[in-house]
Every structure is written in C-alpha cells, then in structure tokens.
C-alpha cells in the first residue's frame, strides 16, 4: 500500500478515508504557445482548453488544491461521494481518479507509525 505522504487518487480511497487535495491531474491545459498562436491567428485572445471548464466547476464547488476531502461512500466501480467542507459532492469515477490526495495519517492503513 501507499506509505504516508504519498499521493493517491481519490478513487482508490475507502469510505471514511480523508486527506488533502494536492493536485487536479490531467485537466490543466497551460496557456501555451499553441493556444496563443491560434488566438493571434483569429485576431482574438488566446484561450486555454476545455479542461478548464471542468476545473472551474470543481473549483467553484469547493474542490481546490489544499481542500480537505473525506470519502463518504465509494461504490467502485461506480461514483464516489466526497465531503468538502460542509458540502457533499458526487463525483464520477473518472474525475475521482484525477484528484490526487495526500491521505491523512490516522485513517491510512499504514498510519503514522508505519
């Protein structure tokens, strides 16, 4: 299993497990030269990709790096219910696999002692 401190996708965490969201993986499309070139071609501003849309939605619902997450229900291979502050969000498996979490010591099987 994971040793403490190692990142783990939320999708793999069990009911009752918690941790801190470190990174939303695979969604960020950096504002790169390609986008910029395209933007200039169209005589408009350059834009980031579509992944932004999802990241934005997650952000506005409280899922930002640094947020404490806790798994309320994990119906693998189905969706997952996660607690973020005072709200409960239902996330599809695909997204839950992209949220990289640093598990909390006490709930992790290898605990702080391991």
């Amino acid at each position, binding site marked *: 299993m994971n040793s403490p401190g190692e990142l783990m996708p939320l999708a793999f965490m069990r009911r009752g497990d918690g941790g801190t969201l470190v990174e939303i993986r695979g969604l960020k499309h950096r504002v790169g030269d390609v986008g910029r070139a395209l933007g200039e071609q169209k005589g408009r501003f350059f834009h980031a990709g579509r992944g932004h849309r999802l990241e934005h939605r997650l952000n506005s619902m409280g899922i930002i790096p640094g947020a404490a997450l806790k798994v309320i229900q994990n119906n693998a291979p189905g*969706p997952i219910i996660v607690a973020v502050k005072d709200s409960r969000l239902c996330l599809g498996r695909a997204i839950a696999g992209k949220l990289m979490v640093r598990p909390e010591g006490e709930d992790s099987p290898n605990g702080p002692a391991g």
Partner: protein
Amino acid sequence: MSRGVASNEGQITAALSGNPNAGKTTIFNNLTGGRQHVGNWPGVTVEKKEGTARYGDYEFEVVDLPGTYSLTAYSLEEIIVRDFMTLDKPDLVVDIVDASNIERNLYLTTQLIELGVHVVIALNMMDVASARGINIDVELLSELLGIPVVPTIGLRNKGTEELKVAIVSTVMGEARFRGIQVNYGKEIEEEISKLQAVIEQDERVSGEFLGNYSSRWIGVKLLEEDEKVEEDVSRYSEPGSALFRQLEASRDHLFTIFSEDIETVIVDNRYGFVAGVVREAVEREFEEPVTLSDRIDRILTNRILGFPFFALFMWLMFFLTFFLGKFPMNRIDHLMRGLGNLINTNITSPVWLRSLLVDGVVGGVGSVLVFLPQIFIIFICISILEDSGYMARAAFIMDRIMHWLGMHGKSFIPLLMGFGCNVPAVMATRTLESEKDRMITILVNPLMSCTARLPVYALFTAAFFAAHQGTVTFSLYLLGIILAVSMAKLFRRFLFPGESEPFVMELPPYRLPTFKGTFIHMWERGSMFLRKAGTIILAGSVAIWILSYLPPGVKYGSGASLAGKVGHVLEPLVRPLGFDWRAAVALLFGFVAKEIVVSTYGTLLGVGENRALISSGLHGFFTPLTAYGFMAFTLIYTPCLATIAVIKKETGSRRWTAFAVGYSLALAWIVAFVIYRVGLLFGLKG
C-alpha cells in the same frame, strides 16, 4: 411582462441569487407570496420566475435567478445571472447564503460584490447551522463583508420582514454598504489597476461597453481569461490596441511570477478571503465529521442496499398513485355523471346543444378529469423525492447503469421526472453539461410513461384486463423504460458517439419536505394539467364532437359521420396492427394530448362520462390483444404537442424535433405490429 414599471418611485427590483440548494425558491415564495409568474429567459429556456413583494409603501419586483456556484462564463446559468446583473441592473441582489455551508456559499458572494452591484445577504437555514454547532456572528460577518446580512429560516418563513427592511434601506442608501473587495495580492492588484486605467481611457470600451460593468470587474475577468468578457471587449477593441497590449503584458508578467494560471491564483485568493472571514465570524461548537445525512447515505447509497431501497421508493410511488388515487377518483366520476344527468334533464332542446354538452364537454373533458387525483399524487411523490434530497441520490445509484448506456447518473433525474410529465422533464435536462447527453436524454424522455397516458391505461385495462389491471399497467411502464434504455443505447452508438461529460453533482443534505413546499411544487406542475383539461382537451373534445355529429342527420359517431370518414382514410395505416377506424381517429387527436385518446372514445361512443359504458363499448372494437397493442402504441407514439414544443425549444433544432416525432411514430408502429402478430401466432384473438 411587467419589467416596464421597474425603478419608478417606490418600485424596487431585487434579484435573488445564490448556490443551488441554498433555499432560493423558498425565500422567493416567502417574499412574493402567491404573486408570481413563471416565464423563460429571453432566448433560452431556463425558467425565469418573477413576483412582487410589498413592504409599507414600497412594492418591489423580485426576480429569481438560476442557482450558480460562481460567476464565470462556463455555464448558461452563470451567464444569465451575469447578464441580468449588468444589463437589467437590478437595484440590488439578495444573495441567499446557506449558513450550514457558509464557506462555499460565500465564494459566490465575493464575486457578486466584485461585479459592483448592491448585495444583501439572506443568511438562510440558520436552524440547520445551529443544529450542527455552527455559530455565526451575523453583525461581524456584515462588517467584514461590508454589506447587510439578514438571518433567515426560509422553511419557517422567519426573517422575511427583516429581509424586506434590509432591501428597502439598502436601496434608500440608509444601510451600511461598502462592499469589501477581495484583495488579490500586490502583483495582481497592480495589474488590475493598470488594466482599469487603460479600460477607462479606451473611449469605445468605456463609452459603449463599460456603462454596465465596473472596470475592476472587467480587469479581473480579463486576467481570469473569461471568454465572454473577452468576446465582448473584442467587439469594442481591436488586437494591438492599448488594452490588448496591456492585457498581454499583464498576463505574461503574472505568469512569470506565479508560473501557474493566474486564474488559479485568483480563485485561491477568493477562497483565502472567504476563509479569513469565516475564521473571524464563524465559530464551531463541535466538529461533526459524520452528519446525520451522511449516516442515512451510508444506507441509502450503499453499494448493495442502495438499489433495493430505490426500487422500494419507486414501488411506493406507484402504489400510492394507484391505490390512494382510486378513492377521490370514484367521487369525481360520480360528480361527472351527476353533471351529465343534470344537463340531460334540464336542457332538452336544442338536441345538438345537449349532445355537445353531454357527449362533447362532459364526456370528453370529464373522462380525463377523473384522473386528476392520480396525477396530483404522482406529482406530490416526485416533489417529495426532489425536496427531500433523494433525487440526487437516485442519480448516484443509477450512475453505473446510466454509464453502461453511455450517460451518467444526472441524466436519470429527467427520466424519472418523465413519469410525471415530459415537459418539465425535458426542461430538467438543462442541468446536463454535455450537449450529447442532453440530446439523448431529451429524445428518449417521451418514452417514460407520463401521467397523461394513465387515463388510457386505466380505461383499457379496466375494460379488458380487469383481473390483472395492476400487472398490465406495470408492464407498460416497464415497456417504456426498456425502450428508452434501448433507444438511448442506439442513439449513443450511432447518433451521438463519444464519451459522456464528467459526472459532478452536489448532494444536498437530506431534508424533511415541508407541507407547504411540496404543495407549491405539486401545484405548479399539477395545475398545468388542469389548464390543459380546460383548454386543449376541451377543444379537442369539441372538435371530435363536431366531427361525430356532422353531417346533419347522420347517426352520431357512426362510420358515416365526418369522424368516420377521416377514420376510414387512415384505417389502412393501422389495419395491420388490428385497429379500426375509431382507433385511427383517437390516435390522430391524441397527437395533441394523449388524454384525448380517452376522451375521443368517450365522445365517439356517445356514452358521455360513464366509464362502465365506455368500457363495454370498447369490446366492440378491440380484443384484449389489440387493446394491449393499442396501449403500447399510445405509450410510444409521438410526444404530445406540449412536449414537441418544449423539445423544439430545448434542442433549438427543427430537424431533431422532427426526428423525435418520426422515430417514436415508427417505433410505436413496429412494437404494436410485433405485439399483434406474435399474439396471433400464439392463437390469441385478433
């Protein structure tokens, strides 16, 4: 629309904004009482509710804006909210904040303040918050944000008057209003100021565009790469202008400093600001890691138990509908019969008038009105599913199955709502982010058997399957579901290939639905049926009566009447299904609304409202086999006129609307044909 009277002396426009599930609708109902009307936002079909509220001499118009989490330009709802704020310029915005989820809710508040509108917070669900040990220093919160904060408990109508006072005094300029802005840190703030300066100097942008916005807001939005604002600004400013150059420079500069998206930094700062406010003004008596709602979820969304519970709730919904609905139904039936007799004895001449009233109006509309109780019960059940928070859980549970269909759980909610009425169900697909998912969900929605089909099942099962009425009705619901699933799978495979959009949905905490809330909800939808009975169904019944009565002297409702002639023309089309000309006429008029299928028989048979007589009359035209085929046909064929209209509006495409009509008609024919032929093979009487 009553927009014209806004901003007169004593007239205030207040917009309600807030997160979904923050209790916006309840506050709206509290403020406006019954004085409201529902329309659509121009050009889009997101529901728009307006109403009026009164306080002393002041009358204000209240506009309910769609629930949003943010004011980015990433969803239609968000754009509607933004546009309303900046173009319609309400005198102020009432931001409904869920006190039990204050941190996430205030994220939107920071953006409303930034937009430059006057904001009053209705700090709602104070009771839920204090039950969870969340104590909020309302006075301090108000000071930290620089805007008035009014504690409310929407469900118990508490704080409504205070909210009205705050609205009036804010508009009159008597209340505290500073609107504390989020500070984005030195570097970003510098760039915002530079952008603000060029925006204000740019003659076209500031002259023609800025009027509606604050320059700070535009600056922040441009740094955030907000597509809508970029597009708007592009209309007034060309690439290479001072504004564009400054923007490129600012973005480059900030990108080198933060080496990540500026957008992310801005989001972080907003949450940071909110966290700071919450730290000061909110105190938690105890941490509640597992709430009651979570504990319920352990059972109701459990991998193993979730589905049986869902099945149980569905069964309960239909059981209540059919079982409880029966009692008032018989009473209405009596009432209608009495009305028919009354007309029969009191209006003796002219004969045609008596026939019109008894056969046409009472027979047609009455035979449908009988189902009012069942329709209302099913709407009550759906309202309870929604208001209790279970609907979102149903979506969670069904996600795996929906996934197999190439959609995700959220598509399930409109399908379930389709059991009530397909019109709101099709509108509910708005919450789906993916255009493809939405199209599929819209196209298969009419296959979910709505309440308008109930009268048809009830009439035919009573006449032909008296001993197994429940089973046969259930089989029709099941047939609809199976067809919807198969069609969804086909459409995904051939018409809208590709992955479905990621599944993200908020699960509101479980709540006990209130009587008032459920009633209002039920009434909003159920009354549509009443209106329909008084308009479309009445008109349809009268039209059929005329066709059955003319030409003069012909035997009423016989093959020689106009109805008979129309029916005979269409008969060859339905002959292979074992239907006669009357079925053709009934189905033809059923295009308008499916209840009319029943009222057609009521009218055609000339037996008026008497269901027993209609039933026995039907035995002349159908066998149990063809009756079942006929019910299946009615279930599947062509969505009713209202549904077609809403499909047209929602898809914005004539082609897809025509497709929805065409495919369901073809499917209905094929299914009825198969039922008939297979039945004949097994020796059933055709």
